[in-house]
């Protein structure tokens, strides 16, 4: 048998083997976490321990008035993306007949994640203000975590 032929076959097998090894890799698309959303859960104002769904909920981001949630029924919680361009975000939380405005302020920190995910922002010193009117449907807000860095619930809204 011609040793050159053996060698050639060996190279072909080697190439196939290497192609096999490398074929099973993930595409370089972002699968790590991006900027975390603010996670909110709704609770009963009468009994703080029990969860209470909102019958119909609208959430609108100010000042552009982009609709985030449009009349979703039986909402137990939601996550909203905060504004990464400023230290302030404003949202209107509305039921069918009642509009309440919430103002969030915080400090931002930019963190590098990975090649495919780029940079994300994490939020610290989160504070919430409820604009008072004659008839707020939101009775009380509790901040559980002042740092928005991961997916856990950061805010409890009692109604």
């Amino acid at each position, binding site marked *: 048998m011609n040793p*050159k032929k053996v*060698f*050639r076959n060996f190279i072909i097998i080697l190439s196939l083997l290497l192609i096999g090894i490398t074929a099973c890799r993930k595409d370089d698309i972002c699968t790590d976490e991006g*900027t975390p959303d603010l996670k909110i859960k709704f609770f009963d104002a009468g009994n703080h321990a029990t969860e209470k769904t909102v019958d119909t909920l609208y959430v609108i981001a100010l000042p552009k008035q982009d609709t985030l949630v449009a009349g979703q029924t039986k909402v137990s919680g939601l996550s909203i*993306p905060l504004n*990464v361009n400023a230290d302030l975000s404003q949202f209107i939380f509305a039921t069918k007949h009642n509009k309440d405005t919430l103002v969030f302020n915080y400090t931002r920190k930019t963190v590098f994640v990975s*090649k495919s*995910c*780029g940079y994300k*922002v994490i939020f610290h010193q989160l504070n919430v203000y409820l604009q008072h009117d004659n008839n707020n449907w939101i009775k009380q807000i509790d901040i559980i975590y002042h740092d928005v860095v991961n997916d856990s619930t950061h805010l409890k809204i009692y109604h």
Partner: protein
Amino acid sequence: MTKKHSYQLFKNSEIKINILYKIILFLVIFLPFTYPITAQQKTDTIVKDSIIKLRQPIKIRLGFDVGKYVWAKLNQSESYDYYIDANFYKLYYLILSYGYEKHFTDNNLLNYHTIGSYYKIGMMYNLYDNWLDMDNDIDIGINYAFAHFDYLLHSYRINQPGAIYIPEPIQVEQSFNNNTAQWLELYTQIQVETLKHVYLGYNIGLKYLINYSDIDNFTVTYIPGFFNRNTYSRFGFGMQYFISYRLTF
């Protein structure tokens, strides 16, 4: 957190490293054994034909990567790759190459320049039996490569899936200097003497990244000579179209 991540990445690829080392080891052991048998056959025929045995001329080729140069020019970047190969022993070649790259990347999240150079040293073996005085190659080869490069991050955009307030690009003009990377290449190559002493050829190769620098608040993305690094794998793929000129002594 990023440190932990890179550690896990390393751990996952440990099995792959083992396989690759075995293959390279196999190749290194296998190469010297194949050669003497073929050499023996050649001397036999020479004796039979009673032709005066001539000294094999030392063959040195100077090459230039045309594909890389043209591709870079089309993409507002700049790249050069020069190499020299010397036929130092029978069908074995020694290869040295040098390349420079100024590569521009602009995706949705990052906008940056990679500027740097790389050096390669390697061995190549010609598998092709030439007819008469023809001089063509079907080669297989292995290279070790080292790159030294800088990043200049012009701007970035915050990654926020489902953003209501669309993240604006942030101008930084920040540089991340003195990064290094090392990798191994295994390739096959065809070279054809088209004009006298002028060769055209191409190769396709598999690259395996051995290591790369850690960067604070950034990472190794594009590597000159290696192309884009994949986040989940140390393997890369490469292709070259080149032209070379042969000097004879």
